[in-house]
């Protein structure tokens, strides 16, 4: 393990961890905003109770997303200073804009929303959570623009005097074709995660006997909202993911070939198959056993069932010829770790589909208007397992998606311009990186335990009671009354 390996592990660990909270933040802020808007429209206190319940879970989750996000921004400079020097001219701008446009919006209006119950007019208060959501979406856009540049550099030229990539067209960076499919894909995946998060707590309360039966219809509302979100967003994620595959084949053919562990070229007209599962090795030898769908890979990669797909070996040869000449782009091996790309790609798709299947089952089970048997509909023990599992499906699908896209890019840091090993900080010692890696891993592990405990605690407690005529308008309150929320 040298500083480079450690820095890579650190980036992987901190990024995957940070991304457990990001999609929940994006997705849940939308659903809480919808719940609160529903309450404003109908004055049905069930929606208010759900707003406050999921609002609390949202803040518990947001706190960790926030504090782990700071590490992400500092990390480029700390561990990847040569990368920062090389692409800072292009890569830094979206990060700065993200902070100025999105982070201020998110944190200021979340503060107003959390502390503003009863202190700002109701409509304005509801607008605050919508603005938080808009902030999360803007944040996603700019950070993904930066990542898309790494997958497919555009709008730049290499300046021979400074030896770095410099911006020529900022609009091209913001409308990178990879970005235009990645952004909706990430956003829909986040909405799936938010929906599944709501589904988990709602299903669990529907199943649970201790939950007051008068509350069951309220959790039923939440379950249906969550399931609809998972379903609509899941469809969106599938469509955008498919488009992403076509673009990826065009700009990162190695990644697509590695997704299937396809070593040999498949010529036009033959139709490359897609394997659902393979038992055996993935190193190009004959597999022992596999379930394959004929011609599907050709379709995923090219949009035609007969399309030609280039294999790993051929791309490797091509890249050696193209890139071997320069220190920044030379590598022994232009292949990512094939088992990782193969399995992460499948797990991403499989877990996403599983979440959609749960959503369909829930909607079917909870169809129709409220009937007297509401309480018993979800009482089968199986639902407790489904409730527990459903949030992890999109959550892990998100993780595997990122693992696939980032590890599938290897050995490149910026596709075709800079290999990962040349981007690491030259002056940083192994001891320093090892220290920070250990500190973050231990700290993050401890925080995960605390977070899960809190979520369980609040989840179990359920939505708190509110008076039937609940109002949060400041005009209904006295200046000397205790505030609705304080630390």
């Amino acid at each position, binding site marked *: 393990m040298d500083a480079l390996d450690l820095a890579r592990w650190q980036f992987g660990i901190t990024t995957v961890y940070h991304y457990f909270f990001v999609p929940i933040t994006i997705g849940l802020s939308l659903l809480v905003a919808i719940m609160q808007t529903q309450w404003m429209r109908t004055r049905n206190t069930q929606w208010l109770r759900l707003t406050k319940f999921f609002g609390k879970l949202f803040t518990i989750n947001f706190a960790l997303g926030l504090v782990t996000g*700071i590490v992400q921004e500092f990390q480029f400079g700390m561990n990847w200073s040569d990368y920062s020097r090389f692409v800072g*001219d292009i890569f830094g701008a979206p990060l700065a804009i993200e902070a100025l446009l999105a982070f201020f919006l998110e944190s200021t209006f979340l503060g107003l929303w959390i502390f503003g119950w009863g202190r700002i007019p109701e409509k304005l208060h509801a607008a605050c959570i919508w603005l938080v959501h808009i902030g999360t979406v803007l944040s996603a856009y700019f950070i993904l623009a930066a990542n898309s540049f790494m997958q497919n550099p555009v709008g730049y030229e290499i300046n021979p005097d400074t030896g770095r990539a410099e911006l020529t067209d900022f609009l091209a960076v913001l409308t990178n074709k990879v970005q235009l499919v990645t952004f909706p894909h990430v956003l829909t995946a986040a909405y799936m995660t938010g929906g599944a998060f709501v589904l988990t707590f709602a299903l669990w309360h529907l199943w649970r006997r201790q939950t007051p039966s008068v509350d069951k219809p309220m959790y039923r509302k939440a379950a249906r909202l969550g399931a609809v979100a998972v379903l609509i967003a899941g469809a969106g994620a599938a469509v955008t993911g498919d488009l992403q595959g076509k673009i990826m084949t065009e700009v990162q053919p190695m990644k697509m070939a590695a997704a299937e562990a396809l070593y040999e070229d498949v010529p036009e007209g033959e139709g490359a198959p897609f394997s659902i599962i393979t038992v055996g090795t993935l190193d190009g030898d004959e597999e022992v056993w596999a379930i394959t769908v004929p011609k599907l890979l050709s379709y995923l990669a090219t949009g035609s069932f007969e399309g030609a797909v280039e294999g790993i070996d051929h791309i490797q040869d091509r890249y050696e010829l193209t890139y071997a000449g320069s220190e920044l782009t030379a590598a022994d091996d232009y292949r990512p770790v094939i088992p990782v790309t193969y399995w992460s790609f499948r797990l991403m798709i499989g877990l996403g589909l599983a979440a959609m299947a749960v959503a369909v089952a829930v909607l079917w089970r909870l169809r129709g208007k409220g009937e007297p048997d509401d309480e018993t509909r979800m009482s089968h023990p199986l639902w407790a397992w489904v409730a527990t599992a459903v949030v992890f499906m999109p959550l892990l699908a998100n993780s595997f998606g990122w693992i696939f896209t980032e590890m599938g890019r290897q050995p490149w840091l910026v596709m075709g311009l800079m290999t990962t090993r040349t981007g690491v900080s030259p002056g940083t010692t192994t001891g320093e990186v090892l220290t920070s890696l250990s500190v973050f891993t231990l700290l993050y592990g401890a925080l995960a335990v605390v977070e899960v405990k809190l979520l369980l605690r609040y989840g179990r407690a359920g939505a708190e009671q509110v008076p039937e005529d609940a109002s949060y308008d400041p005009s209904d309150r006295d200046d000397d009354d205790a505030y609705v929320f304080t630390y």
Partner: protein
Amino acid sequence: MELTTIWFVLIAVLWIGYFCLEGFDYGVGMLLPVLGRDETPSGDDDGGTGHTGETRRRQMLSAIGPFWDGNEVWLLTAGGAIFAAFPHWYATLFSGFYLPLLLILVGLILRGIGLEYRGKVDSATWRARMDTMVVVGSFVPALLWGVAFTNIVSGVPIDADMEYVGGFWNLLNPAALLGGLTTLTLFLTHGALFVALKTDGQLRHDARALALRLGLAAAALAVLWLGLLHLRTGTPLSWTVAGVAALSLVGGLVLAARGREGWGFTGTFVAIGLATASLFLALFPDVMPSSLDPAWSLTATNASSSQKTLGIMTVVALVFTPVMLLYTAWSYWTFRKRISGHHIPTEVHHAAVEPQPTAPTGR
């Protein structure tokens, strides 16, 4: 004005915003065990209504509650802006000051979690643990930013390849530690005055009295530290600004002593802002001077991004910064009222409580 100069100024503004705003959050966080003690010298607060140290702590934390997260974004924006406008500065600074930044990150993580989670479990032990995280997490950045900026302004070993070659212990020189102590006491004073301005009852008076004592120490340290720095690298302008900073600190303390907490807080606010400005004035046109060879120093010119990037960033900054300032100001206006003991809900009502199951009803 050159684009590089404009961005040097903008980044100075971001750091000024960060220290002026987040400075009082750190101060309030560190003063939790002092101003929020269970046994206060003044005996029972608020004329015997039985408000305990816990109520005082909740008043203090609720005073910064809606703001601290937004204030922290100034740091994130400063970091992002340095990355975008001066990539070499970002790369040298962040990879060179590796361990201090790691400590700052850990501090910020502990503090954020402590603030957000302390009220989430109704147990005194839990709250005490979270308070400790807030105290430590406020102390570390308050101290280390002073250390970092003293080093930046006075120069550190940077080689011909723009790499920092000084190691960790080199950053803990006496001048830098003096800088750390100065920012620490300045933020403590700033935080105490913020508590005096934003709370009511005995806590307000205790905070004001403490601010005066802390302020004297801060003023002495600040004069020493700024004098030392500007003797090395100062210009007439930076000397002037540093002098005005010292005057506003002293003026603020005098006014606070007369019960004008608003003016007192304005005094520390301006003092911290101008002290930071004076550092950047002393620094210009360098962004990270090299102590090995002036020719190897990072300057606003040789560390900068291309004109194209700077131009685009300038437009974005000019359009969106005013918008951000407007809603930030609105947030401060919304929560402008002082927080008294009776504003704090008696039960920790947002901590989770298990509901009692009710008998099923047929609806």
